[in-house]
């Protein structure tokens, strides 16, 4: 049986890291993820983990050190937010191209500028094409569970890609919630040991990593990354199945909340799903068939499965907590709608940009989206698909 606790999202992430007991953690403080390396260095200094903690001088060096450590044959982890991830950006791409299953806790925050420390998803969206598996978490429990599943997915030999677990800065990272933890021994057994095939510290087989890779081979190497990302889909489901056996908690590519008979639906990620569920329940009481699709796996993007899950709905709103500033809509919106198009699903769909820079998103605002969807579903078409939710009136 699990251990009942009350932890903040950052504590949950740090606790997961403690139980995973990675060989190396390299991190640099940045709000709102600072607490993760803080808690973790306490575990290190009190001898609760075997980890070498590298207190780097920047996030660029955090990711560089993680790459070095993972290439050396170790399990390496880090945590960051917003501008920290922006500074890492170069190395984020290099990590995935070197096929190193590094695991990162990304506590989502608005990327500058102007400077803002609160939650949105612009940091994560800035690395969505970087070749990392990206899992999103509605609650502290999900942030913890996703981290426990992370290494099994990332280190699978058909995958070998880095993975980031996202959660909302402050909203979950600093909110204390009830959580069910696994016993240390169970985590150890579930996560397993890391035995890379090739690594720098293997004296018997020296290896050169990170070549100059020109016209002759880079294309094929990128194709291999693409293949690995496709392979990750099945592995994510397999690991989730094992995790369910252990904990009873079920995970897939996404969660469908009262979606099977819904006429109008919202698609969103992370903590906003909680607010949306509340609204769905109250609308259902009024006889309105509202539903929710909460995306957990954003990379690889389960386009076909999402399209199928939404095929029966009359109107969809995709909520993006970051604008792509492309004149079209948010990143999740363009992924969902292009997925629908390719899979022959025609449902009127609109993009809502919301919650930028930590702007609170209320149940009233979510209700207004469902109200819009009712109108849209009556019309059967969308006239202004690129919308902003919760802007100041003056």
């Amino acid at each position, binding site marked *: 049986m699990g251990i009942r606790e009350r932890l903040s999202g950052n504590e949950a992430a740090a606790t997961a890291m403690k139980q995973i007991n990675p060989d190396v953690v390299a991190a640099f403080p940045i709000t709102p993820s600072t607490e993760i390396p803080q808690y973790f260095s306490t575990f290190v200094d009190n001898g609760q983990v075997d980890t*070498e903690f590298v207190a*780097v001088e920047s996030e660029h060096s955090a990711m560089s050190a993680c790459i070095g*450590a993972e290439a050396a044959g*170790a399990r390496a982890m880090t945590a960051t937010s917003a501008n920290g991830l922006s500074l890492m950006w170069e190395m984020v791409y290099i990590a995935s191209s070197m096929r190193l299953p590094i695991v990162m806790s990304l506590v989502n925050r608005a990327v500058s500028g102007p400077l803002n420390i609160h939650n949105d998803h612009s940091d994560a969206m800035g690395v969505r094409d970087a070749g990392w598996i990206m899992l999103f978490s509605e609650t502290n429990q999900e942030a913890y569970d996703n981290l426990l599943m992370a290494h099994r997915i990332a280190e699978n030999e058909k995958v070998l890609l880095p993975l980031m677990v996202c959660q909302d800065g402050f909203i979950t990272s600093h909110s204390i919630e009830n959580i069910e933890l696994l016993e240390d021994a169970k985590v150890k057994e579930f996560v397993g040991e890391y035995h890379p095939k090739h690594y720098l510290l293997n004296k018997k087989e020296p290896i050169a990593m990170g070549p100059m890779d020109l016209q002759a081979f880079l294309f094929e190497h990128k194709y291999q990354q693409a293949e690995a990302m496709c392979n990750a889909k099945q592995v994510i489901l397999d690991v989730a199945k094992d995790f369910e056996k252990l904990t009873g908690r079920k995970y897939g590519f996404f969660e469908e909340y009262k979606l099977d008979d819904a006429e109008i639906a919202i698609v969103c990620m992370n903590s906003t799903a909680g607010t949306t569920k509340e609204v769905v329940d109250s609308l259902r009481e009024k006889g309105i068939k509202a539903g929710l699709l909460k995306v957990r796996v954003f990379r690889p993007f389960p386009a076909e499965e999402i399209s199928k899950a939404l095929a029966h709905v009359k109107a969809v709103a995709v909520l993006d907590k970051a604008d792509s500033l492309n004149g079209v809509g948010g990143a999740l919106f363009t992924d969902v709608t292009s997925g629908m198009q390719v899979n022959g699903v025609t449902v009127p769909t609109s993009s809502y940009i919301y919650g930028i820079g930590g702007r609170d998103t209320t149940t009233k605002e979510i209700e207004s989206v469902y109200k819009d969807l009712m109108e849209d579903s009556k019309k059967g078409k969308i006239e202004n698909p690129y919308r902003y939710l919760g802007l100041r009136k003056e």
Partner: protein
Amino acid sequence: MAYNVKEVVADKPSRFTSGHRMCAGCGAPPVARMILRALKPEDHAVIANATGCMEVSSFIYPYTAWTDSYIHTAFECAGATLSGVEAAYKSMKKQGKLPDDEHTKFIAFGGDGGTYDIGIQSLSGAMERGHDMTYVCYDNGAYMNTGIQRSSATPKFADTTTSPAGSVIPGKMQSRKDLTEIMEAHHLPYVAQTAAYLNFKDLYEKAEKAIYTEGPTFLNVLAPCPRGWGYPTEDLMQINKLAVETCYWPLYEIENGKYKINYKPAKKLPVEEFLKPQRRFKHLFKLGNEWMIEEFQNEVDRRWEALLKLEEMSNKE
């Protein structure tokens, strides 16, 4: 045992092999070869390399010139990358995940671009954190890989593609940064400046000391560039010699704060002799530009005198 270059070369096969694509007359490959020869044959090494000439010419997929384990990630982070490797080693050793009887040494190579400039933060961080590694800067005094752009290691007045000797501004107008002293300011157990001179003795002995001193150590090695400096490829060793004999590039080391100048020329040559064979200083020898040579000489003298004082002061009881 006294150093004998023939014995060292005969006894220790090169761990940086032929077949790499660096230019003829480049100062970097002999430096890399000799530094790696300073490793005990039984020891494994992990080499980290900053992006630069050495990296793009020695590891073009699927070929590598490195017989030890090797990692390249990006331009500015050889220090941080290798600190991750070293942390992994420490952690895995402690946990019994690596054989007890095996020893791995950690050596980073970066050019002056990757070390003095874009990589100085990563280097400084790695040194301050005390990782057990040796960072080697092969200093060719400009961004040679991208086509000879000025760096903070470029000497004053040098003609580079971003500090061209123009009709108004006669080359780079700033003096070079003294990285060796910046590294000493980290209070490392061992910091040295060296060059491939006098049968590589100075270079070899300093490499050995740096690699086998516990903790972070730093070597700044002169590595002339025939394309950027403009000398005939066969004159590489002559250029090295003139850099040392003019005291433009003093050979010295600092062990736990104590300075030792390893070579004091019996007769210090005028800096002109170092400048003259190089195309990048050609404009200094035009009529009316004598002031530039004079200024260059004054700066060399000032730094040499300062170094002599540091040696004297740090050795006072």
